[in-house]
C-alpha cells in the first residue's frame, strides 16, 4: 500500500506541491487540493467533458488520469486562460454568442475549443466537430457554441482574410 507522496504539478504556469496518494485522480487534485473549481465532475467516465483540462496542449479528461501520470506535463485549466480583467478570445466569444445556459459544461467546451484553435486556426466543420462533439451540454446550447467557436476562429485570422 502506497502512502501519500509529494508531486510537483505545473498548473496554469505555476508549480504546485501536492501531497497525494499516487492513484488520486487529477480531477480531485485540481478541484480539492488546488481549488480550481472550473474543473468539474459530471459523469466520472470521460464521456461528458466537464472535467476537461489541457495536458501539454492536448484536451484530456481529468477524471481518467491519475496524478502519477501527469506530474511532468503542463496543465492548463480555464482559470489559466485570459488575464486579470481580460478574457481569452474564446471566452469572449462564448459570452457574445450566448453559448451557455447553466454553464457547468462551459469550461470544458472552452478548453476543447482552445486546443482546437491552437492546432487548426481555420478549422473546417469536420475538425470543429472532431474537437467539440465530445463535450456534452445538457441544456442544449450547441448551436450557439458552434457559432462562438467559429467566431473565435474568425477573430484569429489576420484582418485581410
Amino acid at each position, binding site marked *: 500500500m502506497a502512502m501519500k507522496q509529494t508531486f510537483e504539478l505545473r498548473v496554469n504556469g505555476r508549480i504546485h506541491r501536492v501531497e497525494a496518494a499516487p492513484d488520486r485522480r487529477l480531477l480531485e487534485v485540481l478541484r480539492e487540493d488546488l481549488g*480550481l473549481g472550473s474543473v468539474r465532475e459530471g*459523469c*466520472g467516465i470521460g464521456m461528458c467533458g466537464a472535467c476537461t483540462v489541457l495536458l501539454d496542449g492536448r484536451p484530456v479528461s481529468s477524471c481518467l488520469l491519475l496524478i502519477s501520470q501527469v506530474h511532468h506535463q503542463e496543465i492548463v485549466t480555464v482559470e489559466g486562460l485570459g488575464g486579470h480583467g481580460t478574457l481569452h478570445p474564446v471566452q469572449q466569444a462564448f*459570452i457574445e454568442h450566448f453559448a451557455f445556459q447553466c*454553464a457547468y459544461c462551459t469550461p470544458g467546451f472552452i478548453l476543447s475549443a482552445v486546443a482546437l484553435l491552437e492546432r487548426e486556426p481555420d478549422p473546417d466543420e469536420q475538425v470543429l466537430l472532431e474537437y467539440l462533439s465530445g463535450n456534452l451540454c*445538457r441544456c442544449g446550447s450547441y448551436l450557439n457554441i458552434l457559432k462562438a467557436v467559429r467566431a473565435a476562429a474568425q477573430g484569429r485570422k489576420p484582418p485581410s482574410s
Partner: protein
Amino acid sequence: MAVGRSVPVRDAEARVRGTIPYLADLRLPGMLVAKIVRSPFPHARIRHLDPRPAMGIPGVVAVLTAHDFDRPGAPRLFYGVDRKDQPIVARDRVRYMGEPVAAIAAETPEAAEEAARAIEVEYEEQPAVFDPVEAMQPGAPLVHEDCPNNIFLHTRLRHGDLEAGFAAADLIVEETYTTPPASHAALEPHGVIAWWEGGHLTLWSTTQAPFVIQETLAEIFGLPRESVRVIVPPLGGGYGGKGYVRLEPIAAALAWKVHGRPVRLILDRFEEFVTLTRHTACIHIRTGVRRDGTLTARQVEVYWGAGAYADITPRLLRSAGLVRVVGPYRIPAVHVDAYGVYTHLPPAGPFRGTMSFEGAWAYESHMDTIAHRLGMDPLELRRKNILRPGDRFCTGEVIDEAFFLECLEAAAQRLGWGQPYEKGEGTRRRGRGLAIMMKSTLPRSRSECRLILRADGMLELHTGTVEMGQGAHTALAQIAAAEMGLPLERIEVIGPDTARVPYDATTSASRSTSMMGAAVQKAAARLKEEIRQRATPLLEANPDEIIIQAGRAWLQGRPEIGLPWEEILRRHGLEALEAHGVFETQGGLDPETGQGIASPHWHQGAGACEIEVDTETGKIRILRYCAAAYAGQVVNPALAELQNQGNVVFGLGQAMMEQIVFDQGQPANANLSDYPIPSLRDLPNELISLLLESPEGSIHGLGEMTLPPVAPAIANALFDAIGVRIRDLPITPEKVWRALHGDEADL
C-alpha cells in the same frame, strides 16, 4: 428599454471563467462528507442492520439508521409533499434498488466509503413489480401494504356526454402509447450541505424549490419555519430533477445526528439514476371523429408509474396528469382517468415537459393515425379542431390567449408543408411530420419579491427564483430595470435564500419569468409610489404631477425640477426604501370532475420536421426541425431563443435514445456511456427556432413549450416516410427496423 433586449446573463464572465460557485465549490469550516448506503434489491425485507462495524472506523463521525428516529425528540422518519409514505432511511423494508438504508458522515470520502462497506445489512428478497399496468393486476406484489392494487390515486376529468360523443362519430380510433423512465442527467449532480447549530438548520441545496424544502424540513424536525434556512447556489442544470424534496431530509437528519458541523452530500452519477426518474407512462387513448374530421369524443386512461414513493405525483395527477394528456382541441366530450401507481422502481417526478411530454407523445401520434384513417392531411385535421381564442377547454375554462394554430402553421410553413419535396428512393426515405402541445402552468401558486432601493442608488431584487441556466435572474433584472427605468447595471439580484427573500412556490413549470416577473412589476409599481410619497414634500408638488422614472423624480413637463432617488432617500435620512410584490394565480380543478381552472395561461408549442430514414437499419436522421413557440412578450430574445433550442435538443434525446433500462429493478445503464444524451453531432442538420411574439401578450416561460412536440413530430414523419407507427419511446433504429422487417426478425 431593458425588456426586449438580448443582454448576456448577469454573471456571464464568471461562467466563462469557471468561477461561478456551484454547490460543490462551497467550503465550510469543519465540513464532513456524507455517504449513503443503498439497497441492492428492488424489494426486500431488512432482516438485520448493524451499523456498529462502521462506527469504529477512524474518521467516521456519525451513522444514521432508522433506529435513530425512535429516540425522543427525533425527527419524523416519514415525509412526502402529499402522501407521507417515504422514510428518510428505510426501516424494515426497501422498495427500490438504491433506496437509502443508512447514511454516514465522516472526515474524509475514503472513511465514508469504508464505513459504507462495513455496515452489515441482511436482506430477504421479496417479489417485485416494475410496470404500472402489471402492478395494478390482482395478486401483484404490493409496494405499500396499505395500498391495494398499488393505486394510490385515481383522478378524473369529466366533460360532456362521452357516449353521445362516440355515438356521433363515424370512426373510433383507439391506441396505446408508452414511455419509459428517463434520467434528467443534469451534468451537476444533486448536492446538499446541511448544518445544525443550536436548534437551527441551515441548508445549501441544489434545489429548484427552496421554500418547499424549508416547509418540509420544518415539519420533519418539528421546527418553526424560520428555524430552517435554505440557500440555493446557481444550479448546473435542473430540468425538474431538482424540484421538490430530494436529498435534503437525509442530509439534514445526518447533520442533526452530528450536530455542530456541516455535512456535505453530493451524489455520484449512479446515484443520480436511482434518485429521481421520469414517470413510466402507459396511455390508452380513444377518439371519436366524424368523416369530415370533426372530433366528437375522447377518452384517455393514463397509468402513471410513480416508482416506490408517491412524491409529487398526487399533486400532478390532480391537474397536470389530467389536462396535459388531452391535447389543444375542441372536443365536446372528454373523459380522462389518471392513475398513480406504485412500482418497485426509484421515485418519479417532475421532468422538463412534465406529463405534457407523455401526453403529446400519445395525442399527437394519435392525431396522425386518425388523419391517416380519414385520408386527411394531418395539418388540416388539426386546423379543424384546434382551440381558438374564446374556445372552452375540457376543464370548462375559456382559453383567451390561444395561438396554437399560429404555432402549428408557423412551423409547418417554415418546413414547406404541403409543398412537394424529395421523398427519397431506395433505402433512404424521407417524410414530414408535425405536432403541437398545450401545457398548463401552476394554478394556485404564489410568487413574491422585494425591491430595495438603496441610498447608493442600487436596486436590490430579492427573489426566490432559482437560477439554473435558464437566465431567470437576468430576465427578472431586465423586468425590474424596465419598470423602474434604470440601467441593468443598477440592479442587484439577491437570493434564493429563505432567510432573506420572500416566498416563491417553486422554479418549475416555466412559471418564473411569467409569475415572478409579474411580482417584480407589482413591487416596482409600489416602489415608485414609495418614492413618489417621499418626493412629494421635497418637490412641493401634487403627487400625481410627479414622474418617477430612470432614477429621478421630477415635475411633469418640467424635467429640470427634480431630484435623483438617492438624494430623496438622503434628505429623508433613509438607508433604503423597499416594496413588496405578490403575484398569485387562482384556480384549481374539482377533484371529482376535473372542471375548473387548470392554468392561468397556457404554454403553446409546435414542431415540424423532415427526416430521412435508412430502411435497412431503421436509423433516422433529422434533416430539418422547426420549433415554434408562442412567446408573448419576449424579455430577452437571445436567451429565449436559447431556451427554445434547448427544448429541441433535450426532446431529441427523449425521443430517440434515452431510457433507463431496468432489468428486474436493477438499472442496467446508470452511467452516461450506456445512457446516452444528445451531442453536437445529434443535432438536426438544420434547427430553426421560431418565437411568436405578441407585444401586448403576457410574458411566458419558454423552457418547455417546444419540447413535447419533438417525439410525436418525428414519429409522424417516420410514418409519413415509411408507414411505420412507433408507439413506445424511444424511437430506436431497432424498433423501426423490426416494424419494417418483422418477419425477418424471427431468425
